[in-house]
Structures are given as C-alpha cells and as structure tokens.
C-alpha cells in the first residue's frame, strides 16, 4: 500500500471538509474492498476519511412499512437485525451471503452500494426492493443511483447517510456464488411490493452492473410463479464474460436464479 493519511470524520460536515482539504482523498467505510484495492496498489488515495463514526450513519430502524439502514451498518448488523428480519427477511438473508463472517463484521451497506461492484449483492437488493438512497445532499431512487459498472450518481463529496426500503409483500434472493470469491456469478432479487408492482433485479451477470428484467416483471405481475419466468431469457450480448463463465452461461443463470428467487419468495 502506498502512503496515505487517515482521518476520522466526526460529522457529515467534517467528512466533506476533510475530503475537500485532501489532494486526492477517498471516503472509507468498512474498507473490505477499498483497503484490498489499495494493498494491490490499484488505488492510491492521498487521504482516507473514515465515515463509520458519524452518528447519522449508524443504526437500523423499522418505522411502519419502512426499514431504514444507516450506511455504516455492517453486513452482520443487517443480517442479524430484528427489524430487517421481520420486515424484509430476504434482505437479512442476502446480507448473510456476502463474503465470510469476518468480512461481514467490517464491510458496510453504504460502502458496498457506493462502490457498485457489478458482482456485489446489495445493488440487486436496492433496485429490486425499490429502495431510496439518502445522501447528505438529496434522496435518489435506486434506479437512478446505479449508473453503470462501478459507477453511481454520487458526486465526489457526496456521502450516503442511509438507505430506506419499503417492506415488500414478498421477496426472494437467490445467488449463484463464485466458490472462491463468494461474489455473485449471478444473483436475482424478485420482489412483489405492497402496491402490487413487481421488480426483478439482477447482479453479477450484466456487463453494465445491476439491471432489471421488464419481461420477467410483466410475466410475474400476471402470474407470480417460477413457471412464469422459466421461458424468459436475457441476451448474452449484455452479459459479463470472464474466466469464471461465458456470457451465454451467465445469461442462462439469470433465468435459473430468477425461477429460484420467485420460488424462495413464496
């Protein structure tokens, strides 16, 4: 790792000020991606501004039909939260599939979402559940937040404060894990919201990051069953191809995981 200067932010304003004073600074949350990237010298920020001690970024609450997760909540906190388990069990289960137990004690939802790794799990959860990302500047729908592989609508000095999820009528997440990295080769979140709308979000497979499958959403709105999506396929042209799997393989996985996600949602 190249030399860097570590700062702890005490408030949102303090975080923005410290980043503004840095030559090439980065916000740091749990660090389970950023520190690993810095160790490989693939990133070399001059300054790191640790967000995890900012009070507004802490805590998970259930208010009526809305679950709100502070951005600095760890994957383990999301996985074990009574609020998440009761209102959105599929989200609690998803958080328990990220990395491994030790990684889940450090990595955070805000950090993962801001990084928008195309194989991360949370992007599918946010888009599938129609979550809202609240920053220190504005509120963004998940559809507007994720803009491409490792790209989001966040500005340089914009901090994710919390993420709110409407409790769905039913939701299921199924993931085909890369057995070495535990990242998703393909993960599908299938959701029926309480207003009756259906959303199907896919991570791990798309070459442009998380994406929705409108044909599956329409089919499930008419008939919520695994059979409804069994014959709907996505084009390999838009899929990732790498040493772990070809675009055709990933396109096939999307349909298989979608069927399983619908079945898991019940």
């Amino acid at each position: 790792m190249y030399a860097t200067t570590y700062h702890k932010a005490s408030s949102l304003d303090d975080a923005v000020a410290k980043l503004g004073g840095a030559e090439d600074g980065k916000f740091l949350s749990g660090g389970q991606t950023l520190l690993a990237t810095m160790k490989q010298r693939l990133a070399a920020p001059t300054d790191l501004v640790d967000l995890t001690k900012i009070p507004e970024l802490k805590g998970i609450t259930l208010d009526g039909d809305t679950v709100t997760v502070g951005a600095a909540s760890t994957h383990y906190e999301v996985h074990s939260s009574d609020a998440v388990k009761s209102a959105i069990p599929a989200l609690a289960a998803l958080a328990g599939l990220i990395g491994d137990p030790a990684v889940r004690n450090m990595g955070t939802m805000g950090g993962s979402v801001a990084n928008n790794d195309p194989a991360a799990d949370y992007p599918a959860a946010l888009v599938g559940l129609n979550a809202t990302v609240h920053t220190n500047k504005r509120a963004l729908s998940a559809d507007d937040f994720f803009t491409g592989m490792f790209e989001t609508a966040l500005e340089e000095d914009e901090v994710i404060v919390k993420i709110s999820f409407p409790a769905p009528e039913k939701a299921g997440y199924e993931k085909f894990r890369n057995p070495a990295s535990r990242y998703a080769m393909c993960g599908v979140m299938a959701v029926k919201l309480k207003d009756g709308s259906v959303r199907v979000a896919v991570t791990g497979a798309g070459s442009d990051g998380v994406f929705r499958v409108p044909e599956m959403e329409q089919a499930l709105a008419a008939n919520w069953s695994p059979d409804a999506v069994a014959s709907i396929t996505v084009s390999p042209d838009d899929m990732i191809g790498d040493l772990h799997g070809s675009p055709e393989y990933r396109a096939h996985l999307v349909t298989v995981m979608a069927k399983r996600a619908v079945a898991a949602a019940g």
Partner: protein
Amino acid sequence: MTKVSMTVNGRAVSGDVEDRTLLVSFLRETLGLTGTHVGCDTTQCGACVVHMDGKPVKACTVLTGQAEGAEITTIEGLAKGDELHPMQAAFREHHGLQCGFCTPGMIMMGVDIVRRHGASLDEKTIRHELEGNICRCTGYHNIVKAIQAVAEGSEVAEAAE
C-alpha cells in the same frame, strides 16, 4: 506517523505508526504478538483473524487507525496463564492442525462460531461458517470436530448451570 492507542488482550497499548499500517502489522511488528499470522494478505485465508470489540475481523484488511480505541483479542489473549482456552484444548485433543499456520485464525473464528450458535451447532453449520478460513493440510475434518466438541461442551456447561 500517528499515535494510536487500543486495548490488546486486556492491556492498554499504544504506538507510533504510519497511517497505512495494517492492524496485523501493528500487532506483529510493533507489539511483537506474532501469533496472528499473515497468510494470503488478500482477506481470504483467515490466518489473521482477531477479535475487535468482540467480533472476528481479518486484521490484514483493517487499518490500525480503524482499531483506535478498540478492544482487540488475539490468539495470545485466549489462555488463562497455563490453562488453555477450551477451543485451544479441543484443537489439541482432536489434533485440529497439521502445519499449524492457519490455527490461530481457525481458533479465533471457532470461538466466535460457538459464541453465536451455542450448543445448537451442527457439522454443516461449522463447515459453512469456516468459509473465510482456509486450511491446506487437514481437509478440515479435525478442525470441525474440535469446534463441535467445544459446542457440545457448552451444552454440558449450560445444563449444569
């Protein structure tokens, strides 16, 4: 250089380190606690697992500054004098190691697995929970047996209370 302070194995410690210093380097090189190992250095193998405020973390992917003020427990902090921690004793009893390199991380993770699952722990769960700890010698069999034995022992202890 920045001065950092934390509690390691019940003892208040501090040191002047570069900001890029990883917690595992601080433990091994500044404090001389070389029981915590560096295996892969890429957050995968788990040889560097320590407990930070009671939860296992991979010390090769935590900056020393992130651990400022925290309570850290390493493998050196488990035994009470000459008396091994039950997990250490179980690894010895069941021969849960061959070369021993992964053992500190396995034991720290094993302690946490039993704490979270208690007596309900079964073999499948143990194997799943060990997904972030890699052993290249044993095939995991005796490691799993050792952790299972401690979990079953906790059942006996609870029944006795």
